[in-house]
């Protein structure tokens, strides 16, 4: 399988990465090189094989459903590029 220029633009948008028109051919070439490389997996017989979900066989640990953290709003917003009080600021989302 390979991707065309329109697909590159669609993936970039899905990945939320702005891509200029002159970057598209280069990205298309690189993505297709990677896709060509992984193509060899299609020759493996995977019939009846379970997909891996956990590399170490272990029971999923569960935490107590209790409050064990919080009251650290200052810490949470400490690295934000734009804040007001304890809120993150973003451009207007809803018209």
């Amino acid at each position, binding site marked *: 399988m390979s991707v065309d220029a329109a697909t590159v633009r669609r993936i970039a948008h899905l990945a939320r*990465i702005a891509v200029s028109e002159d970057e598209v051919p280069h990205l298309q070439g*690189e993505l297709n*090189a*990677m896709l060509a490389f*992984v193509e060899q997996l299609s020759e*493996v017989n995977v019939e009846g094989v379970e997909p891996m979900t956990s590399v*170490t066989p272990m029971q999923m640990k569960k935490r107590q459903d209790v409050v064990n953290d919080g009251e650290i709003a200052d*810490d949470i917003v400490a690295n934000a590029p734009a804040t007001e009080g304890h809120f993150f600021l973003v451009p207007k989302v809803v018209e």
Partner: protein
Amino acid sequence: MTDLTSLTLAEARKGLADKTFTSLELTDAHLTAIEAARVLNAFVMETPDQARAMAREADSRIAKGDAGPLAGIPLGIKDLFATRGVRTTACSKILGNFVPTYESTVTSQLWRDGAVMLGKLNNDEFAMGSSNETSCFGPVGNPWRRDGSNTTLVPGGSSGGSASAVAALLCMGATATDTGGSIRQPAAFTATVGIKPTYGRCSRWGIVAFASSLDQAGPIARSVRDAAMLLRSMAGHDPKDTTSVDIPVPDYEAAIGKSVKGMKIGIPREYRLDGMPAEIEKLWQAGADWLKSAGAELVEVSLPHTKYALPAYYIVAPAEASSNLARYDGVRYGLREPAKNIIELYENTRAEGFGAEVKRRVMIGTYVLSAGYYDAYYLRAQKVRTLIKKDFEDCFAKGVDAILTPATPSAAFGIGEKGGADPVEMYLNDIFTVTVNMAGLPGIAVPAGKDAQGLPLGLQLIGRPFDEETLFSLGEVIEQAAGRFTPARWW
């Protein structure tokens, strides 16, 4: 007094305990070495004041007889580990001037045991790379150069700063992380020892995530014993990481010098690649001979799905990365690019903040997880991963204690030499190491010799899950036979 930077961690521990020198003296010696080695670009942030304060604290605890196992030992920390109050960037522009308000579990355990932080070490951006050339702080120089050449070579990656700093005697050991070979490949390129423990052995909490089902922390050190000492402090159960395993951490150092007599060592035939340099083949044979003289039994084994590990990795790892890196949105931390609306804010920030390799992987990951392609790519890759793991399980079920392979398909190469035209060329560096991540197993890289141009080469030992001790015992045999290697200083 001998140069304090040339000691191993084990020797420094003894010197501190005997009061031959203080941690402050040991720390200052390393801070001076770091300053003189800035051309290597191994450190992206030096923290001398914090280092001296931690050293003084260690000295007073040593004086009181209340010293932890790493008391007063100066270390470097890969910039992927969150360090409270000290800028942590994953060497990406998108994290900008991020200063964590918390400490990663692994580093907090090192400080608990008395270690001293010298600063933060360079790495490939978000640990994506095999040469440390994708860092937003620029490439790292390998202290090793080809005989008679002054071309600067890469130290490998992604833990290139860690490997370079340890090899150049700028720190006594370093933290590192390994998703596809990022501890073992740079260790092999710099004649240092690097171990990626079993998945779940070290907590991932507070480490910038790349591919969560593959990422593991581990040390890069000057000797096998030093690596054992560091791993003991780094490992352990952490309730904050649900994949961290609640089993006791053994005293890894006790495994050093233990007899390997009667151990069964597998030599996997699929690792004998066409076109593999003769000197790597020779080194592999030498490693087998050393283990044999130490009483181990060598058996040929088969890991039939080996060739599929790297392609499967380049689906699984980018898929997980595309999900993990979705958090860099320009809203909560890090870089933010101006925009008219929120979608543009995300798109502009990520276009500006991510480097080319990261963008490529996020995009491929987005593609393989997108509607209509999930089954063909991601699900198939996860099935292949099951088969890769089963290959190892079958091998261990036949009584094999560990597997011996080369660590890398070549020695270090020059900056800008690889991956320019085709990203896959760079990816092939991890061909011997990536299987271990896919199967969640422990793997250690130990220096074993040099190539014809005088560059270091390493061997890899792969162990059963949570049997790092066997790797330390076997690694010690190789180190004793091969000796240790130090680069000639040119910086």
